[in-house]
């Protein structure tokens, strides 16, 4: 069989595309921020694996980086870190 | 000219099949047709009706009817017991009954006026041709033959063709034979 995808003449469609920040800058939800001690960090990837917001990147050379624009400050990363290289500190701003 | 026909039988005797085959035969001759069961649940052994319309014009009507031009009764017991009086024959209508008797008691047939009564022994024809399923003689195809023998709605060849189309080559041949015999044997027995 053959299929043609053709735009409708009338009306809009209830469809969406993958998009960053669908709920806005979710970093603003944070009351505590994660602070990483990359000297302690063993690059084990545990924090990146579990981060529910997908904002943590572990790189073998540089260690952990976190996109604070979208980090909701849940603290899961600090909790799961086996060497306690991440601590949560209150947002002051 | 539109003919409205009611087939009266018992559940399992194939009244609905007979109506369907009649429509198929009508179609071969370029006629229009309609066949439908009584709209509802049917139970084996209980009296059942099937309906047909045959016309040379497009048939617009769809409703069920209980007054017919032709009444085909598969079992004479239904006539004697008065079950068939639930439906009526039109003036100048035709009644065709499966019975070995020639002297039919027609006192309980409801009609709007005069009618002609035909008889055929379809049960004997079925037995002769070994058309018996689970102890029941199959009379519907013979009664179809009798119908077109009594009233020339469609030709017997069309009926036979429709029977073979419905039942397939083997069973169709025997059933077509039953129709042909009844077509030849059906007799006018009374005019009321």
């Amino acid at each position: 069989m053959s299929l043609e995808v053709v735009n409708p003449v009338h009306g809009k469609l209830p469809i969406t595309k993958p998009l960053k920040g669908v709920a806005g800058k979710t970093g603003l939800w944070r009351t505590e921020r994660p602070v990483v001690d990359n000297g302690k960090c063993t690059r084990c990837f545990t924090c990146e694996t579990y981060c529910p917001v997908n904002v943590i990147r572990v790189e073998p050379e540089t260690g952990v980086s976190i996109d604070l624009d979208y980090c909701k400050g849940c603290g899961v990363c600090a909790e799961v870190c086996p060497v306690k290289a991440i601590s949560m500190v209150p947002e002051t701003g | 000219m539109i003919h409205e026909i009611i087939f009266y039988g018992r559940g399992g005797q194939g009244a609905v099949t007979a109506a369907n085959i009649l429509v198929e035969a009508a179609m071969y001759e370029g006629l229009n047709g309609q066949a439908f069961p009584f709209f509802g649940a049917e139970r084996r052994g209980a009296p059942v009706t099937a309906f047909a319309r045959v016309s040379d014009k497009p048939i617009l009507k769809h409703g069920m009817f209980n007054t017919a031009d032709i009444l085909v009764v598969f079992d004479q017991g239904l006539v004697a017991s008065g079950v068939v009086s639930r439906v009526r024959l039109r003036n100048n209508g035709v009644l065709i009954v499966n019975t070995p008797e020639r002297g039919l008691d027609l006192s309980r047939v409801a009609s709007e006026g005069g009618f002609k009564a035909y008889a055929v022994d379809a049960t004997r024809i079925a037995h002769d041709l070994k058309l018996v399923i689970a102890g029941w003689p199959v009379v519907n195809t013979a009664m179809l033959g009798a119908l077109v023998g009594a009233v020339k709605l469609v030709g017997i060849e069309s009926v036979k063709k429709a029977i073979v189309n419905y039942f397939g080559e083997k069973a169709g041949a025997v059933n077509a034979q039953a129709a042909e015999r009844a077509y030849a044997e059906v007799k006018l027995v009374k005019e009321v």
Partner: protein
Amino acid sequence: MGVRKALTGNHAISYAVKLVRPEVIAAYPITPQTSIVEKLSEMVESGELDSTMIRVESEHSALAACYGAALAGARAFTATSSQGLLYMHEVVHWVSRARIPMVMAIVSRTINTPWNIWPDHSDFMDQRDAGWIMAYAMDNQEALDLTIQAFKIGEDPEVYLPVMVGIEGFILGHTTMPVEIPDEELVREWLGPRRQPYVVDGGSPIGVGGLTMPEETEDIFHGIQESMEAAKKVIERVDKEYGRLFGRSYGGLTQCYRCEDADYIAVAMGAWSGDLMEAVNTLRDQGYRVGVVRIRFYRPFPHEELWRYSGRAKGVIVFDRSISFGGWGPIFTDLVTGLAAYTDKLPALSNIVTGIAGVNITSEDFEKLVKRFVETVEKGGKPVFFEWFKKR
């Protein structure tokens, strides 16, 4: 050229589906629809029909599975009746609002309780506001033709809506009539490739039906209304094309029967429109200038046609085979609303609700009711505005 077969209305629909050959069929048995899906199962199992049959566990799932299949680029078909249609009602809305074309046959049967398997239009009318194109046939041939056309109409980019095709259970569903089956290749050539506004096949990541704000959602729904309007032309065009190719044309949204010169118009939908036409023939013989407008498409509603045929009429009588409890018959309600959009001088109006729950209405009944209406108006009287006509 097609072949002729003596088919029940249900089997006529099965044959139409066979000609279209949808990739996916999903259905659940219910009286009086069952023989459609039985026939299709037989065709699929014997290899006559190359479709995938999903034997679902409910009507809700039947339509949901068809929705999934249609999203993923397949032609999809289901059929149901009565309680089954009510059970899937949630999904009925879902499909149209997603703008995904597919086809569903409705073999009408009234709604419980009490148990009753006989036909009226209650189940069909219950889908009135669901955003489907709603067609209703008068005989088995039209049931077959409409089912094929439904795919063409729904997949038109002007429309992109699912289509339901209704017939009455038993009256057409179980009634055998000669039906011409068009040539399979020609049907598929005419239908062309499956068309839809977007596809879900993993090709590019899209989301369908996610949380949407009020204004945007309203825009999406408004598009359905616009497409309904556009569908009127598409339906007419498809009817004409079909007529040219297959020799049968019915007249678009409505069928006009002896109504061009009529002083009185009787309106109905479904098989009993034929009985009404018979009644009109008899009344014409008696000198009454009456005609019938048969509703072929209930959505989009043929407001304009009805105005064209009845605007100059002295009276319009509408036969509804369903009732909006506490209101009137739905066809009547739509018709009067439509007339009011065109004129402030309405003709004499009458709504007869009858044939409910399968009560057998004959051409004699129609003759009596239409004659009474015409005579009342002719004598300067006021005809009954609304009546639930019971036969006993």
